[in-house]
Structures are given as structure tokens and as C-alpha cells.
């Protein structure tokens, strides 16, 4: 029996340390308050840790041609202000998110819907503020037309693509106020909204139509530094925090084993190759680089073995991921690497690895540079940029003169998400750093149209990658958390975020 059941007793409360700035909680804008948004809102569909799709707010999401979709909502759902959730609310919300003048940060998630480009013209004001691909059928049903066939659409509607969440009519009156205290359709209602430096509190929404959450109250305490949150968890002042990267080596000493959770996430890191630099034109150069890096040693020395060396171009959590497709090229073999490079004619000049400074990547890329220097005999150095802004600008302008940091954390676990972002010209990702590879794009389009559920179809795309080796996969990232004694069990969904609704608290 969990302590949650007694209505009379002290409410079961979970205190979460959050170390990301929360400028705005509108689901179409938030970019680092996933835990909160996923507790306050309920998604149309949900992917569990095994990649199994289920329906939450939606009764069904169906299509015959993967282009025209019909979404049917469950009856009896209400927003926290009591108004019923209707198809119109979804359409209004999505239109608001997609409408360029609103400048919502997550609007890119809606780019698949027909008419998105009309709301986001290259120049000037849009002529319309409604997505042509959306039509309301009745209170609980609406139709969605996509730009092109996309079998992954139901998956795209899952929990982490928060742009697809509905907002109540009252939200549109004052989106700024709504951004501080959002009203959602989820199991928890925000009772204390956002104020600079103060905790945000959400309490169980009594009229929630979905599954009962296991706790009564969630409190997010803001920390300016992850490390502090971690230390406070150590002192037992906060129940759940994300493990900071530079404590990965330390955590085993600080916390008992069952207080450390490592969830595989849909994220992967790469060493991207500047396709604009002719020194890297020979595929053997790129393969040599990959083989010269000892991923296992790095994982052990820098990540406390919490990540996993990548063996493909998408993480293994993705359904149908072709694990090991990278083969020998993702395995450490310094001699072979040196040979391969020699065959390719060696490497001229300095090899500078670029990465965004101030974000804690220094050790990783210094290690990579050391390997390249020692195993390939090239003059390799790792060089941080001033910050993210500089890095992204230099990357987009193609002025980086060496391999560079790249990473993609997908919002829904589908190979399609990562591959599309990294290797195609699809809208929504203009600067993901990988080269645009027509073969991959073609393969993706085919898979999208195929309607395959298991993701096998997308593995085909990765065969082209293995052949052309445009970019070096490094690590599948896991999302790591530590908890206080108060938490007995923590589970996560397919997106790596812990499920706050399902946390099991220890009995006193």
C-alpha cells in the first residue's frame, strides 16, 4: 500500500530540484520544463519505456494514407479551470503555436502540418493565422492533414512534443500570465505559479479523467546550479534531481545504488565532420577518426559508465534501431585507425575540435583530441567557443575548421526524428550540423510512407550512413537522476524523463 491512498494523512509530496531557467511555461514555448509540463498536461498519445504507444487524451489517431489523420478525443476531460477539453481547443492552440508573429519557440514541432509555411512565410507577415491542415469535425474530433506522408505522426503527438498540448480558451486572453501559471488538462494543477527564484507548486487535480497519480503534490525548487541541487539532495532537502555531468564519477560514492537512476534517453552525441573542409573528403579519414576514439574508456573515466558507446547513428532505445550497424568503425582500434588514415594519405595541418564553451563538454573533447593526437599522429586540439551563440553561428556559417560537437535529443523516440533532424533539409532543423544526404532523405520518405510501426523501415536509412560515414557517432546518452530516501521507485517514459505521476514514495 502506498501512502497516497489515505486522503486524510499528510499529502504525499515530492520536491524536485530544477536547475534550468523557466522563462515561460506555455507548452508551445517551454524548452526545459518537461517534467512540469508533462505533469500539468496530458498528451494525446504516450510512449512508455519500451516504446509501446498508448492513447491518453486521444481515443484514437488514425489514418489510411499517413497524410490525412483523424484524432478523436476522449470524452469527459476538463481543464483545471473546469472547462471541457474540445477539439476546437486543440486547433486553436496549434494555430497559436504555429502563427509566426507569436514567435513560439516550439512552433517547429508543428511544421509537419499542412499550411505551416503559410503561417511562417520567409518574409513579412503571414496572410493567415490558421493552419489549413486542421479542421474541426465535432467537439471531440478533428482532422489533420500533413505536408507529406508520415507514419510516425501518432508518435509525434506523444508526451515530449509539448507544442501539441491543448490550452483552454482563457489562455489566449493573456498568454504572458498563462505562461507563468498554465492551466492544463493533466493530473496536476499549478497552484503556485512561477515567480523569479521561487518554487513552483502543482497539486493533484481532483477531476482528472485519466489515471490517478501516485503523489499529491509536486514542488519544483529552482537551483541556479545543478551541482547545488545535487548537494542538497545529498542532504535530503530535495527528493529528485538530475545528476550533473561532473558528478557522474562521484555519484557512486555519494549515493546508495538504489538512489541513482539512469534512463536511456532518445539522445545521441556525435563528432560532426565539416563537410565543407576538403581534408575530410576521404571517407577513410572519417572512419579513422572514429576508430581512434576509445569510447569505452571515455565512458568509464568521464561518465562513470552511465552512457553507452554508440554503435549506430540513433540510440538503441529507438524502435527498430539497427544496433551495431556502425560495426568495426565504432570500435577502438588505434592501429587500424592509423593505417586507414595513412591509406587515405594522412592529414595535413592542425585538427581543431570545436565545441560550445561553458557547457561542461571540455573533458570529453579534450579526451577525443588526445586520442586523435596520440593514435593518428595529427596535431589535434580541442577548442571551446565563447558560448552556445557563437558556436551555433559559426556552425551555420560553416566556418569551423575541424570536427565539432553535435548532439540530438529527440522529443519522440523514433529514428525518424533524429535522422530527419541531422541529415535532411526538412523544416524544423536547419542547423543540426550533419551533411544533407539525399539517400537518407529518400529512405526516410519511403519509410514515412510505409506505415511501419516497428521502425524497421528507418534502419534502411542508416545503411547509407554506415557507408558514407558523414559523421562520427559517439555516445548514446542516458538521463540520470538521483533521489532522496523518500523515493522508493522512479520510472521513466521513452523520452528519458522520470514519470512524476508514477513515483512511488517510501513508507516512513
Amino acid at each position, binding site marked *: 500500500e502506498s501512502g497516497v491512498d489515505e486522503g486524510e494523512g499528510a499529502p504525499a509530496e515530492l520536491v524536485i530540484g530544477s536547475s534550468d531557467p523557466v522563462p515561460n511555461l506555455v507548452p508551445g514555448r517551454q524548452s526545459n520544463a518537461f517534467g512540469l509540463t508533462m505533469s500539468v498536461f496530458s498528451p494525446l498519445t504516450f510512449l512508455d519505456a519500451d516504446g509501446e504507444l498508448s492513447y491518453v487524451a486521444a481515443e484514437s489517431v488514425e489514418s489510411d494514407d499517413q497524410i490525412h489523420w483523424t484524432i478523436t478525443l476522449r470524452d469527459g476531460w476538463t481543464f483545471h479551470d473546469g472547462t471541457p477539453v474540445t477539439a476546437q481547443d486543440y486547433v486553436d492552440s496549434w494555430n497559436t503555436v504555429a502563427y509566426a508573429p507569436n514567435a513560439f519557440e516550439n512552433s517547429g514541432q508543428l511544421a509537419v502540418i499542412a499550411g505551416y509555411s503559410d503561417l511562417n512565410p520567409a518574409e513579412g507577415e503571414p496572410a493567415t493565422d490558421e493552419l489549413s491542415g486542421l479542421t474541426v469535425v465535432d467537439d471531440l474530433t478533428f482532422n489533420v492533414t500533413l505536408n507529406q506522408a508520415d507514419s510516425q505522426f501518432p508518435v509525434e503527438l506523444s508526451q515530449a512534443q509539448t507544442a501539441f498540448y491543448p490550452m483552454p480558451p482563457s489562455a489566449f486572453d493573456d498568454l504572458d500570465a498563462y505562461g507563468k501559471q498554465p492551466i492544463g488538462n493533466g493530473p496536476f494543477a499549478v497552484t503556485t505559479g512561477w515567480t523569479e527564484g521561487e518554487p513552483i507548486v502543482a497539486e493533484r487535480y481532483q477531476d482528472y479523467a485519466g489515471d490517478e497519480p501516485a503523489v499529491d503534490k509536486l514542488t519544483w525548487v529552482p537551483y541556479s546550479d545543478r551541482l547545488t541541487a545535487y548537494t542538497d539532495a545529498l542532504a535530503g532537502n530535495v527528493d529528485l534531481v538530475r545528476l550533473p555531468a561532473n558528478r557522474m564519477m562521484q555519484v557512486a560514492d555519494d549515493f546508495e545504488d538504489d538512489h541513482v537512476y539512469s534512463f536511456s534517453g532518445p539522445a545521441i552525441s556525435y563528432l560532426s565532420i565539416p563537410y565543407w573542409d576538403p581534408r575530410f573528403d576521404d571517407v577513410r579519414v572519417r572512419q579513422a577518426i572514429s576508430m581512434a576514439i576509445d569510447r569505452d574508456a571515455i565512458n*568509464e573515466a568521464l561518465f562513470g559508465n552511465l552512457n553507452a558507446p554508440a554503435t549506430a547513428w540513433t540510440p538503441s532505445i529507438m524502435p527498430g534501431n539497427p544496433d551495431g550497424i556502425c560495426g568495426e568503425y565504432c570500435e577502438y582500434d588505434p592501429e587500424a585507425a592509423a593505417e586507414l588514415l595513412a591509406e587515405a594519405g594522412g592529414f595535413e595541418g592542425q585538427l581543431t575540435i570545436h565545441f560550445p564553451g561553458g557547457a561542461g563538454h571540455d573533458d570529453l573533447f579534450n579526451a577525443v583530441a588526445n586520442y586523435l593526437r596520440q593514435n593518428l599522429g595529427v596535431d589535434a586540439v580541442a577548442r*571551446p567557443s565563447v558560448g552556445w551563440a557563437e558556436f551555433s553561428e559559426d556552425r551555420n556559417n560553416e566556418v569551423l575548421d575541424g570536427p565539432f560537437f553535435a548532439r540530438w535529443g529527440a522529443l519522440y523516440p523514433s529514428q525518424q526524428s533524429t535522422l530527419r533532424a541531422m541529415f535532411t533539409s526538412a523544416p524544423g532543423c536547419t542547423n543540426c550540423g550533419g551533411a544533407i544526404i539525399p539517400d537518407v532523405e529518400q529512405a526516410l520518405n519511403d519509410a514515412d510512407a510505409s506505415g511501419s510501426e516497428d521502425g524497421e523501415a528507418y534502419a534502411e536509412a542508416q545503411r547509407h550512413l554506415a557507408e558514407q560515414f558523414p559523421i562520427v557517432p559517439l555516445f548514446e546518452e542516458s538521463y540520470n537522476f538521483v533521489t532522496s530516501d523518500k523515493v522508493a521507485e522512479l520510472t521513466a517514459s521513452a523520452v528519458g524523463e522520470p514519470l512524476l505521476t508514477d513515483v512511488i514514495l517510501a513508507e516512513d
Partner: protein
Amino acid sequence: MTEPATVALDGALDRATTRGLWATLRTRVQFWVSVVLLALLAIVAAIPGPLAGIFGEGDPRACDLAESNRPPVPGHLFGTDVQGCDVLANVLSGTRTSLFIGLATTAICLVVAVALGTLAGYAGGWVDALIARTADVVLGFPFLLGAIIVLNTAPNRSPLLLAAVLAFFSWPTFARLIRSSVKEVREREFVQAAHVLGLSRARVVLTHVLPNSLAPTLAIAATMVGGVIGAEATLTFLGVGLVPPSISWGVQLSTAQSYFQSAPHTVVFPSIFLTVTVISLIMLGDALRDALDPRGRT
């Protein structure tokens, strides 16, 4: 009455008066200790590799990640850092850059501060206002912002440039100190006496005002060296500091910070070198100050 009534004494007193800076310094233990320490550091700065080689690994960039953060053992007397590089070799190799940045920054800063502080304190009026307000602005101007802009636009980020940037943001403290001492000293009678001798202002300032105003500044200048070496690490952390293959204590310290609980030796050894450097500089400064101040000499 013209017969001399007294005869000037040539007593034991006078032997003690054959003195000079050197004669005074020579007798100070403090002076010799600091000189020896600094000489050692200078040797280290000149030939770090061979020196480190004596104790084990000589190449600071020969790293084995499998040996990451190992505690000191024979062969790696100071242990290894997170990349599995020899800490000893790194600390020794970092000496040159760190010393250079620490000293060059302090030197540049002092030159600027002495010039402007004296000018402000001595000239007064609008010159003072201009310099003092400029100092206020520099003090209030976010260091980070300035450093990023300058270091990022500069074509090559040499240690000298770094030192110049650091100095640019530290001179106001010293300038204010000097300004206030100068304001006090310029009112003293011997300064007036010097004016009355018809000496040019510049000469009065250089030979009488300044030497009598520098003490407070010199007292904290040496402690500044340590701060500068740390500040250099901050810049590196932000991506505008020195870039590899430059090696510095600051960079080592900032890298080691993440692991100081599991691998304390990676913090301890660079810190020791830093401490020794600063302390020897302070001791040298003290000895010089005492020797330069006649009242401390007797």
C-alpha cells in the same frame, strides 16, 4: 670665535652607515628564501619537460585515459589528471604560462595604475575627475563582457593579450590606492621643499612623491598574482582563455575542480605551486620594501 667648537664624530656609528640596497638585502633570510624559490620556479619555467622527466613522465600531453585520476604513485609522483596525463609534468609545464600571465598582468596593471593614479592624485581638478570616473566605469563594466569581446575579436590569443585584458580590469583598484596616497604625500613639507628647489613637477613626482606613496600598492600587488592566475582559468572555462596546447595552472585547477573529491591531488598540487609562487613574491616584495624604506633598515 672661528675656532671650531666641535669636531664631527667619526665613531663606531659610521661603520654601520655604509649601506645600500644590496648590502641591506644581503642580510635578510627572507630575501634569500624568496630568491631561491623564485629561481627554482624560473628554472622550472625554462625546462619543464626534462625536469618532469626526472620524476617519471616528462610529456604533459602523453595521456592514457585508462589511468584517469589515479592518486600519486612512483612514476606519477603527483598522480594523473582526469585525462590520465601526468600531473607533475602538467604542473611544471604550466609554470611558464602561469608565471608569465601573473607577472605580466601585475606589471602592466601597476604601470598603468601608477601613471594614472599619480596623475589623478597630483594634478587634481578635471584630470582627477576624468581618471577617477574612467576607473569607476572600468570597475563597473562587466569583466566577462569586456574579456569576451576583446579576446574574441583578437586574431591570436597570446598570453600577453590575456595579461593586457586582465590588467585592464584591475588597474582601477591600484590607481585609487595610489591616488589617495599621492594626495596625502603631496601635502607633506618635503614635497613642498622639493618644489621650492625649482625641481620640475615630473621630477618631484617621480623622485619624492611616488616612492613615498607606493607602499600600500606594493603590499597588495603581490597577492594579486595569485588572483590573476585564477582569473585566467575563468577565462579558459568561458572559452576565451588560453587554448591548447598552452598549459597553465589555472586551466588545470579549473579542470580538476569537478573531480576534487574523488581526485584531490589534481587540485592540491597546482595549488601548492600557486601558493609557493605568491608567497615568494610577497616575501621578496616585503624584503624590498623594508630595504627601500630607510626606517626599516637600521
